[in-house]
């Protein structure tokens, strides 16, 4: 490998070109070509220049050893900015480039490209982050400028040691894992499957469909959720490129972008999925003559038996048995009437959990959300007063396939004559969740419309702000307002049931627009519960090695420019696991995630940073210290030569072995000891 250790001391500044500071050549050392560095300081409009004195940084940079030219420019990432680098390389014979601008996470690729366009190896480049790490976090101009100068000096000292490197290519497996079978996961899976990629769609529940399957109508167009979702669900089942796995959990993820090894656990449903045709005769035959247990899909508003179909539109159309409830499991003494009823012998009481390993190139997370538990806001009386409902419960009530066949009736079967809908329950509240859940305004208006249509009740929407940014949303709001729904701007403070016993509730709320408190009797109170990260989001993100933002949602790589990527290459986000979203947004994001995964797969390989480690054979003493430290088993001991050898295909470039090598014989590309020492020295060497 070419070594370019030599660099000379700085020479005096001898000429200035176009206002830029230009140094003379450094003398030749050790026969290597002299180091000639170009430093470019970006204003980023005023983002950097407002707080950092970029002219001063440029001037100081120009005085540093080996710096041939130092310039500042309004936008270094623009075409003219990049062109400037390219021209300087050609005209001034630069062989190292330093750009001081934003985070390398944003534009390192850009400037490596510009360096390469000038004919240099792209790794003869070093980036300095003076925006995120200086101008945006400091107010004091003097200290921010001082810091920027230090960081530039560090980069200049470091870049002198850079070597020419080649990026590595790693093949990408074409299969994709989609985690979660709601509308996000379904969309992503179908998009990929249509493109000819094989998809493993893993769903924890017994059926795909997610929350959307529970809804009746969807805002603002009021098309029926089932009508648009069910065909997609059946497509998933039928698609030759999709392997659907329900009642399955991801338990372990190993490997890295391009070749993930995913361990999944199939929980037993005690039914042979390949034999069951969903005829439901077993359910009819069950020793329980009537439903006894809370139906999860109907949010407890109906009862089901221990053997059941998750819901009428379930995909797969296969029953399951709840072993906690089935007598056969608890006592072993059931008459097993279900077994007799099944002419396909699909019931397997002894079915066991099964573990399987999948190999995929990319992963799409579509694990969704959970609704806020209304018991956490006890003053609304949910769980205490029977006529206080959550919005999800009411979604089931208004649904034609729901427990009441679409009739909006109270628990006693009566039609409500007045209904209150409380917005922002578990949203915009420091005591629960501070964020806006984004969909509640619209779904509350939708419920107001549907309830009015079905019951002709007085409907009161209690809101803090009505937020309807979306296509056709404001128009829908207008329509609901025109229907005579009461829109009362104020948050309900207290709810209690009247003494006379018919379950009527009294609601106290400030009508903030009228400036008075109103006391309103309602038969039914609906809590528009917000969206929150699933309870096990933290566990899941660890399994997949991704990040959660402070509020617990999965964190995207960049809030604007990489909204479906994560910090882990090859893992993408779709839908509400990243934050509250409505259906169109979820579908759009799922499409985007699938698109990103496709772009990755279709290239068939990925270029990786050449930051791997290698052993300098003649320095290695064969002590084997490094071998157990490597998390990827990339280091082998060559017994014949008594030295370590690193398989650079397996090396991921963490550098743990480098730091541990007693003889200093392991080198990590891009993070060589000398480079880091120089960088440390650089930030500290101040005049």
């Amino acid at each position, binding site marked *: 490998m070419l070594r370019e250790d030599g660099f000379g001391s700085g020479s005096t500044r001898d000429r200035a070109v176009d206002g830029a500071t230009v140094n003379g050549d450094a003398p030749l050392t050790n026969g290597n070509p002299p180091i000639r560095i170009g430093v470019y300081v970006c204003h980023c409009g005023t983002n950097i220049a407002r707080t950092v004195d970029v002219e001063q940084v440029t001037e100081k940079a120009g005085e540093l050893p080996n710096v041939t030219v130092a310039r500042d420019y309004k936008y270094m990432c623009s075409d003219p900015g990049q062109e400037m680098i390219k021209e300087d390389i050609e005209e001034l014979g630069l062989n190292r480039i330093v750009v001081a601008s934003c985070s390398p996470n944003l534009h390192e690729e850009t400037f490596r490209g510009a360096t390469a366009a000038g004919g240099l190896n792209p790794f003869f480049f070093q980036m300095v982050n003076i925006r995120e790490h200086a101008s945006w976090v400091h107010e004091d101009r003097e200290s921010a400028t001082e810091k920027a100068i230090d960081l530039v000096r560090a980069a200049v000292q470091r870049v002198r040691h850079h070597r020419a490197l080649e990026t590595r290519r790693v093949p990408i497996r074409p299969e994709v894992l989609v985690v979660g079978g709601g509308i996000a996961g379904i969309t992503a899976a179908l998009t990929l499957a249509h493109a000819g990629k094989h998809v493993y769609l893993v769903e924890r529940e017994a059926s795909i469909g997610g929350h959307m399957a529970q809804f009746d109508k969807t805002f603002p167009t009021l098309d029926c959720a089932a009508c648009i979702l069910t065909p997609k669900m059946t497509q998933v089942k039928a698609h030759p490129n999709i392997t659907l796995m329900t009642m399955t959990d991801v338990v372990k993820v190993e490997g890295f972008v391009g070749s993930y090894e995913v361990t999944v656990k199939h929980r037993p449903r005690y039914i042979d999925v390949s034999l069951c045709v969903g005829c439901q005769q077993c359910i009819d035959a069950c020793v329980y003559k009537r439903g006894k247990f809370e139906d999860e899909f109907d949010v407890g508003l109906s009862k089901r038996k221990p053997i059941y179909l998750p819901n009428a539109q379930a995909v797969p159309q296969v029953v399951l048995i709840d072993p906690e409830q089935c007598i056969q499991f608890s006592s072993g003494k059931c008459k097993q009437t279900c077994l007799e009823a099944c002419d396909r012998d699909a019931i397997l009481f002894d079915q066991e959990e099964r573990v399987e390993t999948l190999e995929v190139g990319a992963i799409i997370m579509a694990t969704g959300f959970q609704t806020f538990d209304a018991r956490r806001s006890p003053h609304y009386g949910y769980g205490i007063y029977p006529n206080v409902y959550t919005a999800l419960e009411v979604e089931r009530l208004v649904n034609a396939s729901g427990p009441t066949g679409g009739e909006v009736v109270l628990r006693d079967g009566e039609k409500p004559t007045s209904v209150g809908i409380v917005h922002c329950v578990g949203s915009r509240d420091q005591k629960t969740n501070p964020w806006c859940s984004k969909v509640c305004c619209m779904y509350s208006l939708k419920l107001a419309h549907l309830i009015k249509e079905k019951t002709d009740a007085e409907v009161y929407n209690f809101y803090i702000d009505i937020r309807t940014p979306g296509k056709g949303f404001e128009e829908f709001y207008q329509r609901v307002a025109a229907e005579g729904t009461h829109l009362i701007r104020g948050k309900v403070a207290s709810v209690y049931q009247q003494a006379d016993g018919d379950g009527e509730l009294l609601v106290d709320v*400030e009508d903030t627009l009228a400036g008075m408190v109103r006391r309103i009797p309602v038969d039914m109170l609906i809590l528009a519960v917000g969206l929150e990260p699933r309870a096990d989001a933290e566990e899941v993100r660890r399994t997949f090695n991704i990040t959660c933002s402070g509020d617990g949602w999965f964190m995207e790589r960049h809030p604007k420019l990489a909204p479906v990527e994560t910090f882990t290459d090859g893992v993408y986000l779709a839908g509400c696991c990243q934050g509250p979203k409505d259906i169109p947004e979820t579908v759009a994001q799922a499409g985007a995630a699938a698109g990103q995964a496709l772009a990755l797969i279709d290239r068939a390989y990925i270029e990786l940073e050449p930051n791997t480690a290698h052993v300098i054979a003649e320095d290695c003493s064969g002590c084997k210290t490094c071998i157990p430290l490597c998390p990827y088993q990339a280091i082998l001991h060559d017994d014949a030569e008594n030295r370590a050898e690193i398989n650079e295909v397996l090396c991921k470039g963490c550098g743990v072995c480098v730091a541990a090598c007693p003889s200093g014989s392991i080198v990590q590309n891009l993070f060589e000891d000398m480079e880091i020492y120089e960088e440390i020295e650089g930030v500290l060497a101040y005049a």
Partner: protein
Amino acid sequence: MRPNIRTEADRSPEFARWITSLPGAEKIQECMHCGLCSASCPLFAYMDYSPRQLMHLGREGFEADVLGSFTIWLCTSCYQCTVECPRQIPVTEIMYALKRRAIEEGVYTEHLPIPILAREFQRMVAGGIWSARDDSRFVRRPSGVDGI
């Protein structure tokens, strides 16, 4: 009756700064006017300004309106508003501070017995006679305290 119009000259920026610098009261700035404080207030019915409006007037620096309001004297310190506030504004504590300031500045309305009662109660307990132990008819005064 005060006309229902205010100019910028009616605002006291100092008052706004003072009120938002009370412990926890910087949160007034984050009020989203949901009205939970007002609707949960047992005395709301008799107030001239709702607690929500009072917080807003304070934030904007309308000192005369705030200190001249009945609202602060009606507060019974039941803490319902404080507990409910989704932005965690310590409304009750702010009410205490407003009462103190109104008494200091002597701006409370004389026909309201509440501030006078508060003043008298304080005199009764402390009263400058922090002397010997005395089982008064109403309150137990501390003994042996010369004043703080």
